[in-house]
């Protein structure tokens, strides 16, 4: 027969100071884990939202990102014949040729800190390929005008990007473009960007090259056919599914996750020791009590279980409080930006609390609870009954 849950609960309340100190300690570690992982989760989610399996991104072989790729018209012209391409109702192939450049804008909330914000020059077809782009404020730019639309995330994060704001773009930096619209793009990395008519950006940079081409394929299997064709001898360009391209950009986050896990593992081990300490003290104080329980007929397992339950209860409460504090922190610091070491452009992302993070925190808390209670539980169950009772 097991001891009632109530018994464990009451025991925790008896040792108020010790319980609350242990609780606080584990809470802090849960908060740290949740916040650390939320950075990586935010970046990953943003980049994941950007890619679609049936879209192919074409770059110059050897370039590492859109910002370092240079495509010439004679190269992009070859893409029209790509097999597996989807056509719009008027019979035009859905290929979006884009020019990616960057402009330095002040980061809001920081003094004298500038971000390298990506500017994407697009033709109307870009919106046909990316239906996720939704104007939420203002209107779309006119193709021949010095106008831009701005991603919602970028407009919150960087200066001068509200409606009617003016930014200077172009290699010469001497042309002022007016912000006429704010768009949303399913929380993808496009929301960190400024979009402008490609013709206006091309002339502003006095170049005739472009950066990348995005092809809308009929479906995912056709995407592979298209990739093979583009990589082949007739086009000789670098092509990959959008999903693969953005996954590669998210590589930095892997290091971040590994680092977080190492840090938390060390802190978690410390917490295990602290927990073991608390539970040992709890066991030592109740030697007589346990001997009594054994005499009453409770098994060794029941005694062990009650120690585990005490420890786990503490950890679960810590986990819940920790996740609440973590979520509150994440909600307060939601907008972040970071500069990619591959594309050199700033990516705005939101800290994110995901189910994976919650489960990781739960595993951490339970792990600490179980590992910390292991040795004390064994000790409690092995208390020599007679000896313990004799001292009563």
């Amino acid at each position: 027969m097991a001891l009632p849950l109530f018994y464990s609960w009451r025991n925790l309340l008896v040792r108020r100071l010790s319980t609350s100190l242990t609780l606080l300690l584990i809470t802090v570690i849960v908060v740290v884990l949740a916040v650390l992982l939320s950075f990586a989760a935010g970046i990953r989610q943003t980049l994941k939202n950007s890619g679609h399996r049936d879209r192919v991104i074409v770059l110059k072989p050897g370039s590492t990102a859109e910002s370092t790729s240079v495509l010439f018209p004679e190269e992009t012209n070859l893409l029209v014949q790509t097999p597996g391409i989807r056509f719009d109702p008027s019979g035009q192939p859905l290929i979006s040729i884009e020019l990616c450049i960057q402009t330095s804008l002040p980061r809001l909330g920081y003094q004298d800190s500038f971000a390298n914000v990506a500017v994407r020059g697009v033709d109307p077809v870009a919106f046909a390929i990316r239906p996720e782009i939704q104007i939420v404020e203002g209107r779309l730019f006119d193709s021949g005008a010095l106008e831009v639309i701005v991603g919602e995330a970028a407009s919150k994060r960087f200066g001068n990007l509200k409606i009617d704001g003016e930014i200077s773009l172009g290699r010469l930096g001497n042309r002022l473009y007016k912000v006429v619209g704010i768009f949303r793009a399913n929380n993808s990395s496009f929301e960190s960007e400024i979009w402008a008519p490609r013709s206006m950006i091309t002339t502003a940079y006095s170049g005739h090259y472009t950066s990348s081409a995005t092809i809308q394929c009929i479906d995912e299997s056709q995407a592979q056919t298209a990739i093979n064709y583009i990589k082949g001898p007739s086009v000789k360009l670098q092509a990959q599914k959008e999903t693969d391209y953005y996954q590669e950009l998210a590589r930095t986050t892997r290091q971040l996750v590994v680092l977080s896990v190492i840090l938390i593992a060390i802190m978690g081990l410390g917490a295990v020791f602290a927990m073991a300490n608390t539970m040992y003290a709890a066991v030592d104080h109740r030697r007589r009590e346990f001997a009594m329980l054994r005499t009453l007929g409770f098994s060794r397992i029941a005694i062990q279980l009650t120690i585990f339950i005490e420890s786990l209860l503490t950890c679960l409460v810590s986990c819940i409080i920790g996740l609440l504090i973590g979520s509150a922190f994440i909600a307060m610091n939601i907008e972040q930006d970071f500069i990619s070491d591959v594309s050199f452009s700033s990516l705005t992302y939101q800290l994110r609390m995901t189910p994976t993070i919650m489960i990781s925190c739960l595993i951490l808390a339970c792990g600490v609870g179980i590992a910390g209670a292991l040795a004390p539980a064994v000790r409690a169950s092995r208390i020599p009954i007679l000896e313990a009772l004799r001292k009563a």
Partner: protein
Amino acid sequence: MLYWIYLIRNLTRNIRRTLLTSAAVALPIVIFVLSTSVISALNSYLDNAAKQMRLIVTHKTSFINPLPSGYRYKIEALDPERKELTAVCGMHWLGGKVENDPRLLSTLAVDKDNLEACYPDYHFTQEEMDAWHRDRQAAILGPETAKQFGWKLGDRITITPSLPPYTPMEFHVISTAEHASDPVTSWIRLDYYFDALKEHGFHGDEWIGFFVIKCNSIAGLDHYRRAIDELFANYPDPTKTRDEKSFVNEFIAQQFNLPRNLAILASLTVFVAIMAAMNTMSMNIRDRINEVATMKSLGFSSRSVFVQILIESMMLCVSGGFVGALIPYGLFHWTPLGSMTIPVIQALDIPLLVCMKAVLIAVGIGILSALWPAWLGAKLNVVTALRYLE
């Protein structure tokens, strides 16, 4: 003497508890030492950058926009006698990759003539500089990059730049810049790169990424920071000039605001250690409440009880702090871990100073965590405590 024996006996009477607490303090201290070391590595990198009195001139719109190569001569003309402005060196970022290797390189093509003058802190030898001037395909590798890719002096290596002409280029390793403050970045010659561009039908030698300017005084640094931007203010390509420290800082601030967030992490670990130690100390005092009462009834003052508990806690935490500081120090000085590369800063050095600071912090943890239990012990009512004598 008796006093100290009593203290040590107190710590060893529940050896398991003492060990567990020391470990629970030691592990957060390990993280404290690691994160503080990263901060100090970043700071010393930045301080070195500031000491070198170099300016970085980039395009005003974005550092990724190129500047006309001819700006170099206009900048040089600001101080024709080279009194304060010692040298100007044009640079162009190439990135680069090795075939069938996903790792990205950080390579800069640089003006061959002024590299040495701009980077005296790299202490290039005469031989290295002779080879650099003699060989168009010369490459000076960052020491960390050379180690990672297994490249040695005299090797012929092939790198494909991430920018036009995107074709494999061969280089000869003439130095692995042992004194480099930036262990990753490699340098090749700009003239060789421009020739490769022309060879493949790109015209581009009139554009260059940015300029590095070496000054020889702080006054000169301040003067030219403004003077250069003023000079080009009305040009089609205006410039933005800042010192090397601010330039690097701009990147670091956007890499998760690392120094600030690590400082927060370090202070949280200290908090965790305080919780762990405070728990133990309060348990210790509760266990010995009768003893404290007896001592007080024998004539020990409240103050001496207070101090005694405080010292016990300090000894407990310092032993944890010492182990916690020793672990990372040992790992990074005496094991292969020291040569491990980590993101942003490359090789991590654990300075002795940081370890000493960690031990001092452990003393602080000991005091803070014992304040409450010690106060309880000091204000203990002797009669009440003795009444519950077991």
